């Protein structure tokens, strides 16, 4: 299928499998990694049936490469985040091992989610590299690297510098940056405490399992009380083992929160880009202003600004009128160039702000919708847990009352 009509048809993307593999890494050392199977299906309009069009294997590092590319080429877009690289916010029963099957499973879901988010984004979905990611297994890495996107990336240092020195950033971006910082902080806190809550809850349920054993032992020495005790003990065992499924479901909620934790970072990236562009603009304007002033001084002969040329002139004597003329000419050229550049930078900046803000509005709506859904499903989980609890204890109560 050609790239053009790829997007005309409705497509379904799924990360359907995960497989452990061994290979040699860049340093020719043996390593184990997990590969994920990505399947793309196109849905025929006529009968709604889906046909498998592409299927290939990718590993996590390739997803990272894709995302880094998107970050560079679409700095005005809030680029969807990847699932976490390493397991964080674990509670004791959860493994922090990247090879652990539960972690791999949750990562598979997270990667699928990432691809779906990109595919449903009105701008990102049209990207060629993304298309190739889904369709071209071999050579894809080389293709991406050939775009030279790493060179286009802004250096971290440059960005940091801009953040501190920019004078007039758009207020909305300043607020947004502040918001994304706070969001990151509060979701981190939430996830940490939630993990501790899960740990404790696990403990409460599991200790009840001991009742099962001791009731059974006790029932052995009783006559009339024995049956009731024994069957109640069984219910205590059921209660104790029910927590495993409950907490597994809750991990899904945690993953939904994590996505937005990482989205906060993506938001910040857009803000940083704006600051960088704004700073660039301000520097260019400053530079232009200083050149204009220099020009003026040379023309009128007054020296108001300090310049090396001025100093050497003082020390070594005035320059000739010809020399001065030459310098003025150069400056005028530079000024005219500078004005052009400033104009285009201004335009770029305004375009950026417009486009970025449009995507941010889109993102806000998505976030509000998604988080509401997450809270609802969390409440539903809690309700289910309460109902199970009532059921078990009611059963136990019946057994006790027959003692």
């Amino acid at each position: 299928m050609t790239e053009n009509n790829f997007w005309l048809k409705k497509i379904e993307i799924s990360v359907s499998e995960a497989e452990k593999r061994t290979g040699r890494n860049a340093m020719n050392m043996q390593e184990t990694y997990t590969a994920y199977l990505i399947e793309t299906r196109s849905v025929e309009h006529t009968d709604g049936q889906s046909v498998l069009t592409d299927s290939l294997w990718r590993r996590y590092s390739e997803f990272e490469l894709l995302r880094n590319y998107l970050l560079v080429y679409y700095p005005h877009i809030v680029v969807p985040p990847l699932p976490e690289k390493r397991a964080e916010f674990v509670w004791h029963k959860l493994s922090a091992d990247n090879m652990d099957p539960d972690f791999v499973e949750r990562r598979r879901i997270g990667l699928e989610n990432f691809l779906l988010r990109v595919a449903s984004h009105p701008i990102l979905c049209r990207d060629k590299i993304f298309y190739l990611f889904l369709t071209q297994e071999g050579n894809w890495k080389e293709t991406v690297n050939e775009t030279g996107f790493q060179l286009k990336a802004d250096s971290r240092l440059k960005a940091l510098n801009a953040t501190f020195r920019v004078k007039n950033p758009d207020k909305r971006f300043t607020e947004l940056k502040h918001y994304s910082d706070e969001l990151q902080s509060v979701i981190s806190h939430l996830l940490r405490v939630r993990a501790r809550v899960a740990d404790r809850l696990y403990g409460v349920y599991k200790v009840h399992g001991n009742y099962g054993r001791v009731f059974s032992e006790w029932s052995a020495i009783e006559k009339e009380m024995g049956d009731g005790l024994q069957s109640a003990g069984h219910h205590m065992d059921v209660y104790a083992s029910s927590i495993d499924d409950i907490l597994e479901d809750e991990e899904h909620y945690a993953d939904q929160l994590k996505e937005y934790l990482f989205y906060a970072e993506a938001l910040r990236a857009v803000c940083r880009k704006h600051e960088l562009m704004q700073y660039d603009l301000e520097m260019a304007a400053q530079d232009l202003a200083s050149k204009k002033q220099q020009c003026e001084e040379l023309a009128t002969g007054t020296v108001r600004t300090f310049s090396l040329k001025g100093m050497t002139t003082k020390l070594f004597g005035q320059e000739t009128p010809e020399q001065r003329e030459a310098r003025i000419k150069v400056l005028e050229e530079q000024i005219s160039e500078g004005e052009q550049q400033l104009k285009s930078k201004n335009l770029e900046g305004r375009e950026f702000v417009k486009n970025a803000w449009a995507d941010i509005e889109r993102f806000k709506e998505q976030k509000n919708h998604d988080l509401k859904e997450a809270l609802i499903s969390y409440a539903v989980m809690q309700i289910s847990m309460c109902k199970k609890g009532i059921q078990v204890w009611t059963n136990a109560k019946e057994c006790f009352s027959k003692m």
Partner: protein
Amino acid sequence: MSGGPPKGLPSTGPHSLLDMPHPLAGSSSEEAVGGDSTPSPDLLMARSFGDKDLILPNGGTPAGTSSPASSSSLLNRLQLDDDIDGETRDLFVTVDDPKKHVCTMETYITYRITTKSTRVEFDLPEYSVRRRYQDFDWLRNKLEESQPTHLIPPLPEKFVVKGVVDRFSEEFVETRRKALDKFLKRITDHPVLSFNEHFNVFLTAKDLNAYKKQGMALLTRVGESVKHVTGGYKLRSRPLEFAAVGDYLDTFALKLGTIDRIAQRIIKEEIEYLVELREYGPVYSTWSALEGELTEPLEGVSACIGNCSTALEELTDDMTEDFLPVLREYILYSDSMKSVLKKRDQVQAEYEAKLEAVALRKEDRPKVPADVERCQDRMECFNADLKADMERWQNNKRQDFRQLLVGMADKNIQYYEKCLMAWESIIPLLQEKQEAK
């Protein structure tokens, strides 16, 4: 009930309690039983006049009570005796109204003991006295001395060993009050112990201390304390009913100990869970302050978690106050049982020793000397008393544990129901579509 001229002392035939005049009362029968009546038609009262047949008044309205706690505690007593067919109560004892007394030498708590009875042994139909823990301890010792063949119910522990518990905290005092109430009720229910002189004095005397100082002037059926047999005489064999009981009690006490430890562990885990929940809820609040459209949903979740936290706290409090103390009491109870069994063994050993000694002295055959006969009597009485008490203990144990465990299940159900309600109530809030701002 009509008010008529005061009748003679109750020995002239069946009367309802209402008819029975208060020795100090005026003419009307209502006055006889005190001013404010709170009749509850479910309660039937009967009077007993020693060995006369018990007759229930038809549709009898019960005696009015002058203390507000009584009708519910009367109901409680009836619930305890659900299983006992045909038996009717003529003695009611309640422990309530704890008060703190601050004196120069010490501070202590007293409890009000209210007694209502139609028994001859009581001069008045109603008594109200104040007693402190010491007095209960004294009573128990007296009962053990004077009724060595019977199983005496346990008292709550004298000192609180574990943890930093305030002796005067509401929870501690309430827990103790319940245990003391249970203690007296168990004695009340006992067909022999409830007639004990010391018990009577405990319930009625204005000045118990004066009585205490009088010493052990009273003679009871088995006056002498059981002597300890030295020299390690081994029993030939125990009667069937006592043989297995020792082992049973050992295992029973072990299992109770395990259950106590499990229950404590659960409470500990629940408290730690509560600590985390109390940090968890407010984070949603913090988050909601950052948001616009999500403010209300997040705030709702925060409040919900707060409600669940409160429900959990109530659960742990209940378990600490109601569940653990009863478990511990039963461990004490089975310890008491074991020591009475030991005493019985000793009595049997003494008898058998004497018997063997007689068999060796050929002169006294075939006549069995008087003191051996007395020993045999003592043993047989002991066996009969203890057998009855053991049966009673088994029945009570079954009822008590049924009640205890059903109660535990109930508390957990209530906790989950409270949480369920909280979460169900915020679903509509979460699903609400926000008005376009």
